């Protein structure tokens, strides 16, 4: 008797499973309501990531093309992967007459970055921050090496260096 009971139970459990998948099938066939995937490259322009999304490191510039980085190289030291290279020079400030570091090139190797955020955590003047760009696809590896400061940009003269 248990032979038939086994068969009956087996068919019952199989039908339970089929009921679940079948429900999703017909719902999706007629209404597409439960479809969870998105049509990726089509929605690339409207897709917006959350504010905190760690896509890449960027350097903020204001409307006068000024940034906050005084080439202190704290971020370079904080980075565990050697992602950041800072090229700087010493230059005499025409107003005060003091020699100070001037940022020439803030090189960021996106291909080496693990998005750990230690550089942004360490930066004393909030010069670098997270960008929400997620579309890093490129045909050439060298495109991933980026210069974060824009050309011709200069240090904001009244930037604040907070003591973290």
């Amino acid at each position, binding site marked *: 008797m248990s032979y038939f009971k086994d068969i009956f*139970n*087996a068919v019952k*459990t*199989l039908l*339970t*499973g089929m009921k*679940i*998948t079948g429900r999703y099938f017909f719902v999706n066939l007629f209404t597409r309501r439960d479809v*969870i995937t998105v049509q990726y490259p089509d929605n690339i322009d409207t897709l917006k*990531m*959350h504010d*905190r*999304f*760690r896509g890449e490191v960027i350097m903020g510039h204001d409307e006068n093309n000024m940034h906050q980085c005084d080439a202190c190289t704290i971020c370079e030291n*904080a980075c*565990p992967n050697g992602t950041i290279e800072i090229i700087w020079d010493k230059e005499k400030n025409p107003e005060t007459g003091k020699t100070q570091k001037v940022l020439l090139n803030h090189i960021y190797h996106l291909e080496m970055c*693990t*998005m*750990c*955020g*230690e550089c942004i*955590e360490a930066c004393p003047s909030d010069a670098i921050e*997270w960008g929400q760009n997620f579309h890093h696809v490129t045909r050439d590896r060298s495109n991933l090496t980026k210069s974060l400061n824009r050309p011709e940009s200069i240090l904001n003269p009244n930037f604040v260096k907070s003591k*973290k």
Partner: protein
Amino acid sequence: MENQMENQEFLADKIRTQEYQLNMGPQHPATHGVMRMILQLDGEEIKNVEPVLGYIHRSIEKMCEKSSYKQIIHLTDRLDYLSSHMNNEAVTLLVENALGIEVNDRIKIIRTIIAELTRMASHQLWWGVMGMDTGALTTFMYAFRDRELINEIMEETCGARLTMNYNIIGGLRYDIHDNFVKRVKEFIVHFKEKLPEYDNLLSNNVIFRKRTEGVGIMTKEQVIAYGMNGPTARASGFECDIRKKLPYSAYGMVDFEEVLRTEGDAFARYKVRIDEMWQSMNIIEQLIDKIPEDDFRMKTKPIIKLPKGDFLQRVETARGDFGVYAMSDGGKNPTRFKFRSPSFANLHGLNKMSENTKIGDLVVNFSTIDVVVPDIDR
């Protein structure tokens, strides 16, 4: 008649059967990454399984010795990437305990909630892959539907979906997002509705039951002898939940059940994880309304130096007992850093489990011990 007998003996001499070796992996759909197993087979029956490791070895422990304590945290994301938050937590707790930093309740509770969300996400992924390994391909997408909601919560609050890197020494990287509490509650409501579906689709399915029940039985003694832990060991009745035994973060404040089963077969290992998802929801429900208003990070020195000595911290990840051991000479970097990863310990039992089973059972066993290959190789 006699002639026929002779003939058969002659054939038996001529036609021999022999055991043969089959190389499963490193590129194989069932090995969940780059792991290689050398199988000794007699027809379909498995005589011996020999895992070959090292295909994804990145010498993370050595890298840790070169890094400062702040930098170590993000490397632990890359061990067991499915329980990255718990791995981070292990390192931060180690440093905090060594320095004597006592974090406030807000940090503790948020850490615990995120850890439990991560555990659920990990178990969901495992459930989907478990279905795929047994041949039911649809489970994967159903699991990802629910996992996506957790990932969304993580992305909003922590900034990343998988390698969250949300813990820092002495607190959290950001405060929780304004939507966090609301979204977690929505998720709990959603998932309580969907988790029974997991049972109906797979756990109660007669084919799945036949595939898992009585397969790969490990007794409690064997589990202890092989050093296995986590849900895999709890399925054999070995109480080894670090959350209960050595409570850390907010686990002391909540009332939850350590899921134990005694059968020790593949189905028990499966069921333990399903029940752990219920327990995770239980923990989150108890904590989600109790997040006190406070700072989300404590004051720490800019350069962290551990005092001279040895330090050990254990946490319970989704896979089991994850241990971090650090030896310090008082400098910025540890002189020795060692991870005790649960997947590596659990993998030891695979050979014992798979003795005299079929190839199909090996896949099921491998799936139910739920290894993450980068966690094995480090």
